């Protein structure tokens, strides 16, 4: 059943977080949801809106962002398939940031009340859900470090390492990502740099023989070198659990 149910991949991932019983799995599969496809750049969640639902990304990529009063944007994290893009909103009533699609995305949208009921009744599911949000938080902390204390080259290299490791989990890689969908402007917004600075930094990583970048793909030529350039240690992704 986990192969055909749209939430099957979510259940498989959650099974690594917590000991889900057969009844727990059944309860997740009984969650009401609707499928919705979003176009490139479409908003899944808007800052300030009352939260009525949470979305699991089934296909595509999404990112969290906030817009500033001067019109600039800060990207706060990226999301890959099988992840909730806004699980915190199952308990927080007002969205504190936006979630946007990087390109066409397919979501399963679950009513908030159904999720809180489920986590209230099923401790193992509660733990699995909570772990998801705790890992999100760990990634946010690492991003504070990345924008706060790493130079531009290390920031970009760090972000690329994170994206590659996470994308590998959904079938990309190992070290080559075809269809690398993130623009230089988005990389800039995720690292607190300008687009020009980001471009220069990518060129420099290329000249150092660490990556190869075309309009369509990103290839890592020297994974260890890229990790070192990015001061990257994947402990914060908590993937060992």
């Amino acid at each position, binding site marked *: 059943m986990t192969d055909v149910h749209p939430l099957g991949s979510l259940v498989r991932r959650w099974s690594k977080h917590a000991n889900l019983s057969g009844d727990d799995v059944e309860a997740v599969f009984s969650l009401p949801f609707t499928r919705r496809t979003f176009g490139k750049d479409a908003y899944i969640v808007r800052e300030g809106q009352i939260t009525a639902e949470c979305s699991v990304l089934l296909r595509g990529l999404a990112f969290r962002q906030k817009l500033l009063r001067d019109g600039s944007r*800060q990207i706060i994290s990226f999301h890959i398939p099988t992840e909730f893009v806004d699980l915190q909103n199952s308990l*927080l009533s*007002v969205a504190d940031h936006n979630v946007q699609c990087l390109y066409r995305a397919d979501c399963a949208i679950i009513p908030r009340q159904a999720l809180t009921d489920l986590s209230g009744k099923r401790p193992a599911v509660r733990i699995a859900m909570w772990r998801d949000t705790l890992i999100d*938080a760990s990634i946010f902390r690492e991003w504070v470090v990345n924008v706060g204390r790493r130079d531009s080259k290390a920031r970009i290299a760090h972000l690329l390492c994170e994206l590659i490791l996470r994308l590998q989990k959904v079938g990309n890689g190992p070290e080559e990502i075809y269809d690398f969908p993130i623009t230089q402007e988005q990389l800039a917004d995720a690292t607190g740099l300008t687009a020009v600075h980001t471009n220069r930094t990518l060129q420099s990583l290329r000249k150092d023989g660490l990556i190869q970048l075309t309009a369509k793909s990103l290839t890592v030529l020297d994974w260890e070198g890229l990790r070192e350039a990015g001061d990257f240690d994947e402990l*914060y992704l908590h993937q060992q659990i």
Partner: protein
Amino acid sequence: MATDEHPLSGFLRDVTAQAPLGSDDRATILNLPFKLRRLDAGSYLVREGSLPEHCGVLVDGFAFRQKMTGEGARQIMAVCIPGDAVDLQNIFLDISDHAVQMLTKGTIADVPRAALQEIVLNRSTIGRAIIQLTLIESSIMREWVVNIGRRDARERIAHILCEFAVRLEVRGLNPSQGFELPMTQEQLADATGLTPVHVNRVLKGLEADGLIERRRRHIHFTAWRALQDVGDFTRTYLHIPGEDQLEVAFQARP
């Protein structure tokens, strides 16, 4: 802290603000086993990479979350205030992904991780309240990414001062219009991705513009609204108990 107060009462207030706890739930929290420790400024409560066995509740004093980069630069990622549990995330993450250090001297109540795991699992209202606390921390973390990533130095410092003031006020720890900032300029720099020299210049600028007054570490807000404006500060991301619900009611008007 009043000396006759239960060491976990600040934490209990914080949890209760998140969800209506019954008397059973309240007793469960106050009956958590704990060990008190007096700590000096700079002491480590949690080390990055360690396997946590306790979760520390800050009884008095201030603490901060930090990571060191490979080059030895430090980034502060959050300031913990009295009543905060400093490593709730470690209840269900097995390896600590950052360090927590005392900012001032203070008292910590170490609660066994297993005891917290048990109440989060077995008491759904407490579980929900504690999870909400971590979700709010997480929201603050997102705001810090924005603060450092896209605001200039003056905005960053003004923002962090506003955030600190509001958090203290919500906790009932900010009696007047100002507060004792427990951070050195170097620590402020580490929290905002700036250099101490830059922080010093910005603080002087805020003072010259009549936005704050400083006497040693004491910061007095002389123009609170203007300071919030300078810092591009809106408090919604703090999800202050009651305020989200107010927004829900507001948006539901016919």
